[in-house]
């Protein structure tokens, strides 16, 4: 088949034909669990696409204006220009509300898919040499995604997200010596400030997306360079990759996957209401919403703040506020362990060999136990973040639920880790 004219034209200038041919023949293992990272990638693509639309209508400005739009309960009230622009997007811009809702559902699913992808990588030991660097890049992407989510849902300047900003400010202040300085620098003064909205906007629309795009590129480039790991099976060794070629199979599958993920998010964005900022009302520093929760992926921090007992002490004149341990120290320890896990596990198992064949999750009982226990810990913390909603839903007292979770947060992770260890050990003996 003769190459079509445009292809020849480009090839004569870039020599791309030879490179493209090699690239399209590249082999990728053909297992569904390797598509989870792509779900995250495509959710990000949808976030950027809907995000560009929203950016064209959103005003990152905390200056007060009078709301004069069609939502009657707010007419005549003083709101920020940012809130007013989000109201206009939701009620007056055609396709504005569906774009907002797809964007927000995509953010929640983006974070969920990162977690599921990360679990696949963790439980199969895919982070072992030579893939430690990509694990670190992945953790960086996780943290950036968290930051994107938090800055994003704070942009409408509504009462719910503004309450969250207040809590973030207070947790930042709790850092000894540096806290007040850092908080005043970040926010531009004592809370509430007019400048925080435009700063969050710059981070959300420019700084963090640039970093994320760079790191995704690195993430994929490293994956291509090292070639994808694979599960054990017939014909598969540590020195080959068995799967399907990029073209046409994987390109078609990935493209189809992207469109189907987009379809799921489009249905959700059109049919299920999310973040109805008109119900919460504009931010007002003298009142707070109830229930008051952040988006689910910050729920673990919220749960830590709710469950931790009232511990505040002063040592040599330095006060350690009650939010310092649950808000800074415990998350810091947890994320440090997560970040350094490849190196911790290598040290614990003494295994420093190169691995391209993946483990079955039960092959390493210790890793299984740590993973299951850690997961249980985060899930319980996230649930604890909604203790008052659980109270209303199940008609129980919020104190009872809180006290129960305070005990469960120790017992359940330890129990489940122990169970996972036993199960993995027994199953791997049989297999």
């Amino acid at each position, binding site marked *: 088949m003769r190459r079509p004219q445009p292809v020849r034209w480009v090839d004569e200038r870039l020599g791309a034909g030879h490179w493209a041919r090699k690239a399209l023949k590249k082999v990728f293992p053909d297992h569904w669990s390797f598509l989870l990272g792509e779900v995250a990638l495509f959710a990000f693509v949808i976030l950027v696409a809907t995000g560009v639309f929203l950016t064209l209508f959103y005003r990152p400005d905390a200056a007060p204006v009078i709301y004069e739009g069609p939502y009657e309960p707010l007419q005549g009230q003083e709101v920020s220009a940012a809130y007013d622009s989000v109201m206009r997007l939701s009620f007056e811009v055609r396709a504005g509300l569906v774009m907002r809702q797809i964007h927000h559902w995509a953010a929640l699913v983006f974070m969920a898919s990162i977690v599921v992808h990360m679990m696949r990588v963790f439980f199969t030991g895919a982070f072992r040499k030579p893939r430690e660097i990509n694990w670190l890049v992945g953790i960086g992407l996780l943290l950036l995604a968290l930051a994107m989510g938090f800055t994003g849902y704070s942009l409408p300047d509504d009462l719910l997200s503004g309450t969250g900003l207040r809590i973030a400010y207070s947790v930042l202040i709790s850092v000894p010596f540096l806290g007040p300085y850092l908080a005043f620098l970040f926010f531009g003064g004592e809370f509430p400030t007019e400048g925080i909205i435009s700063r969050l906007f710059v981070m959300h629309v420019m700084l963090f997306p640039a970093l994320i795009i760079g790191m995704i590129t690195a993430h994929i480039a490293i994956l291509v360079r090292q070639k994808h790991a694979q599960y054990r099976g017939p014909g598969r060794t540590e020195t080959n990759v068995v799967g399907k070629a990029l073209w046409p199979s994987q390109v078609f599958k990935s493209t189809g996957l992207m469109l189907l993920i987009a379809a799921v998010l489009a249905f*959700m964005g059109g049919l299920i209401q999310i973040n109805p900022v008109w119900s919460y009302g504009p931010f007002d520093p003298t009142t707070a919403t109830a*229930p008051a929760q952040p988006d689910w992926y910050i729920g673990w921090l919220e749960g830590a703040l709710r469950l931790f007992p009232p511990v505040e002490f002063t040592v040599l004149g330095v006060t350690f506020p009650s939010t310092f341990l649950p808000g800074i120290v415990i998350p810091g320890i947890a994320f440090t362990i997560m970040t350094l896990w490849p190196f911790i596990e290598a040290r614990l198992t003494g295994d420093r060999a190169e691995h391209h064949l993946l483990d079955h999750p039960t092959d390493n009982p210790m890793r299984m136990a740590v993973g299951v226990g850690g997961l249980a810990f985060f899930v319980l913390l996230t649930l604890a973040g909604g203790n008052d909603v659980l109270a209303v839903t199940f008609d129980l007292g919020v104190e009872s639920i809180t006290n129960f979770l305070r005990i469960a947060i120790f017992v359940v992770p330890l129990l489940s880790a122990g169970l996972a260890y036993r199960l993995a050990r027994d199953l791997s003996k049989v297999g």
Partner: protein
Amino acid sequence: MGGLVVAIVAVTVSSWVSSDVGAQTPAPGDARDVFVSSCASCHGPDGRGTEDGPSVRGVGAAMVDFQLRTGRMPLADPGVQAHRKPPAFDDEMRAALVDYVVSLEPGGEPVPFVDPVSGDLSAGQEIFVASCAPCHGATGSGGAVGREVLAPSLARAAPIEIAEAVIVGPGEMPVFDLDRHERDSVIAFIDYLQNHPDRGGADIGGVGPVPEGFVAWGLGMGACLAVVLIVGHHRKRRPGERA
């Protein structure tokens, strides 16, 4: 003796004549009898209270009317928070009971007039967000207020009930100093919450990010996982089929 006969005949005839079965205008003695049988076990035979229930003397017509109208009283178990239930008495008996309790000791707030149509929706929203939403939720779906107490949902709150609750602060609810117009405005806003469809689609509880998170994981991630399983599906090769 004759008078007694006349009285008995009068009561019997009037009960035949009234068109609503069971909705007879209670005679003055009836309310007292109902009080003794339904209320006195906790509130005392003369309303001075017992160890199971507080005194009802001087609480005012608005309080009594609220408790009876929303069915919170009579309350079977004095140890738990009273919840809305179908009222035990019809309108006439309730009015008679209100009069009876007020007659024990005058005082307290009267049953208020309400006129939600004259309320200002925007002013009502402002008052609601500052005073009501912290306990009852931004959409009035109710909330936990600590110590096993729940602020109830406002989905079925009638205008007069809202006005009475604001005035008397039943149970753990505080009292709010709103004038008549402010009350009507809040009622107008709560009516708006009850009757306006959600613009963005299915309202998954109206309590914010918690149900949103469950839906994102269950429906969103679940659907994406289903897609992943389909896309990543291997067609098992049949024996003899060439690769």
